[in-house]
């Protein structure tokens, strides 16, 4: 009996040992999305060490956090997430991590939705009958570069608060990046030839991109956000595509290809795969490259109409 108790105590002691082996001077930032990690790197540069939890190969709405993710959040100096209901799994993640400062409202938590322009915010009360997610408004807001300007500013402020020593550097990097974004925004806006064209999307996650480029994104293969396509609903979308002569279907790299491909074949329309996240596809190496790729691909697809 005594031996058993000693064993359990040993296990306890090993767990209590300080978990940081070497004192790292860099701020450890953990983000949910790869896109946020890119922005943190742009602002934080050499003073931060960034880890993104969700692989861009997967749909960020439906992730099962792994023990490694729990450990990263436990040790994070700053936890950056999308807020709203994009990552519903993040609540049990911070519970498991037990890092009280990154809990909702904590000093080392940053909700990047703060201050951004939200679309599709329901005016009336909502219920799950309208779908599983997007109940506070459309949470895919980083696909508007104008929102990214707000997000970069929030990041600079948060990093400056946590690491006052390098506050000037963070502010300068943010200003430089915002200036670069402004230049790019003009290019992207000019790239889109005709306004008001529309496309069908698998999931309602291209709304901000469409809004930014003056395009229409109102039809989706999912009957409601997060509900897989049903044959009946796809039939309805098919009829609407014919009626309004919509000739482009857009999906994310992680959306199932079967429904979109079959519909594109049947109607003889183009199907285009865009990057919802940095690193989702090879050309999307950072946020600016991702926007270049998305704008260019969308433009080419719409030109084929």
């Amino acid at each position, binding site marked *: 009996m005594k031996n058993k108790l000693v064993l359990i105590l040993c296990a306890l002691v090993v767990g209590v040992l300080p*978990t940081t082996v070497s004192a790292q001077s860099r701020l450890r930032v953990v983000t949910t999305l790869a896109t946020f990690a890119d922005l943190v790197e742009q602002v934080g540069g050499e003073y931060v060490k960034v880890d993104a939890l969700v692989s861009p190969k997967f749909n960020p709405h439906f992730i*099962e956090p792994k023990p490694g993710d729990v450990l990263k959040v436990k040790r994070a100096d700053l936890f950056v997430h999308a807020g709203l209901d994009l990552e519903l799994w993040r609540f049990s993640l911070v*519970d498991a991590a037990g890092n009280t400062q990154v809990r909702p409202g904590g000093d080392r938590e940053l909700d990047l939705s703060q*201050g951004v322009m939200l679309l599709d915010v329901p005016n009336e009360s909502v219920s*799950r009958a309208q779908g599983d997610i997007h109940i506070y408004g459309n949470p895919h807001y980083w696909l508007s570069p104008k929102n990214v300007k707000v997000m970069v500013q929030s990041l600079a402020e948060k990093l400056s608060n946590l690491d006052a020593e390098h506050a000037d550097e963070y502010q300068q990097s943010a200003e430089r990046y915002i200036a670069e974004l402004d230049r790019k925004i003009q290019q992207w806006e000019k790239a889109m030839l005709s306004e008001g064209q529309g496309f069908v999307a698998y999931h309602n996650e291209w709304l901000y991109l469409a*809004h930014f480029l003056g395009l229409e994104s109102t039809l989706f293969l999912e009957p409601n956000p997060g509900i897989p396509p049903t044959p009946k609903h796809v039939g309805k979308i098919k009829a609407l595509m014919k009626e309004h002569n919509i000739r482009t279907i857009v999906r994310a790299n992680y959306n199932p290809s079967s429904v979109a491909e079959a519909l594109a074949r049947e109607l003889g329309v183009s199907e285009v795969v865009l990057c919802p996240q940095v690193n989702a596809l090879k050309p999307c190496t950072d946020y600016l490259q991702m926007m270049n790729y998305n704008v260019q691909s969308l433009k080419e697809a719409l030109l084929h109409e």
Partner: protein
Amino acid sequence: MKFYTYFLAGLLCLQGSAWAQVDEESFKALQQQVEQLTQVVNRLVDNTETQKTRIAELEAENSQLKQTMDKKVSIQRAEGSSSAKGLAAFNPDIGVILDVTGQLSQSDEDAEGNDKISARELELVFGHDVDPYTRLDATVTLSDFEEVSLEEAYATYWGIPNVNTRLGRFRPRVGKATALHRDQLKTVDEPLVVQKYLGVEGLSRSGVEFSGFIPAPWEDVVTHEWIAGVMEGGVGEDGALFGDVRRRPSLYARLRHFIEFSDETQLDLGSTYLTGSSDDDQRFEVNALALDATLTHYLTPNNPLTLQAEAMLQDRDETDVLMEDKPWGFYALADYKLNDRFSIGGRYDWVEPIGLDVISSPRNEETAWTGYFTFHQSEYARWRLQYQHAELAEGTNDDRLFLQATFAIGVHKHAIQ
């Protein structure tokens, strides 16, 4: 006439050059002034252009806003979801999960679910932060066949550095399947090894549990987690690992290794040591080792394949020589998600019951083959059809068909396993 024109022009030129020679300096000054004026005008033109573009932008934004308003949705500056909105932020999160199961069975016994449809379980889930260091979670289970039971009611405390503490009544993390709620299982029922040893619905006990991570240089690839706890004696309904005496505590310690080979492939390995009593004396005469392995592989982001196996081996101090003193059992499960709506799977169970008279019993073990088909209607609604063929120790066989429907409303949250 022509002559006069040329003459006048010539005269003017002469006069001009003469005048220029006379006052070249003031001419240069004038030239400079004109240049400066041109610059000012250019700047003004530039400004007007930028203002025009800005006005066009604002007009476009305005018309988009109007359009969006027409669609009964609005554009808003997000306040961020973290900011608490009034006193409502202090209300606990509430979730309700309903499990309705219909069952066709060969068994004659009029027991839970036999040849009937039952609201097998209605789980009421509550939870909220108590203070920045503590969270309270509770699960109350109602059923049309049993009395109300307190499945879970525990506080999670994060105040000790690197250690998470759970105190109260909870599902101890002594294995994979037993630690899960029914709605998280891949199958309608718990594996036989869990049912026979820990209880038909797995283990739920009062106690205290500590957990944490073991630092390692390779932790980007492998995460090591430890769990240790003390709980009241006894096990769940129809379980037989420990006796019924609750005042004789049971102890457990678990080591878990989670290996991330890639974004698509992960292996979860666990070993748990449990010790407790089968009666009211002071000894810890029942020792058990539980081993588990789970391999998850995503063939595509929407097609995960899960292979899982768990085994429990025991060393029991049985006084009756006719009884097996080292009974063991295991299950192996495969689950494949065909697409975002359907998954299929199967499970094989093999278990040696505790307290079985090995001489007189027709079979020394119980086995079961299970196949199932799951329809994921949405994240919050799911249907499952399951067939099971079981060969029982008493010598009979049982074929059962289940139809299970699971619905969840409200804030439906489960702890990460």
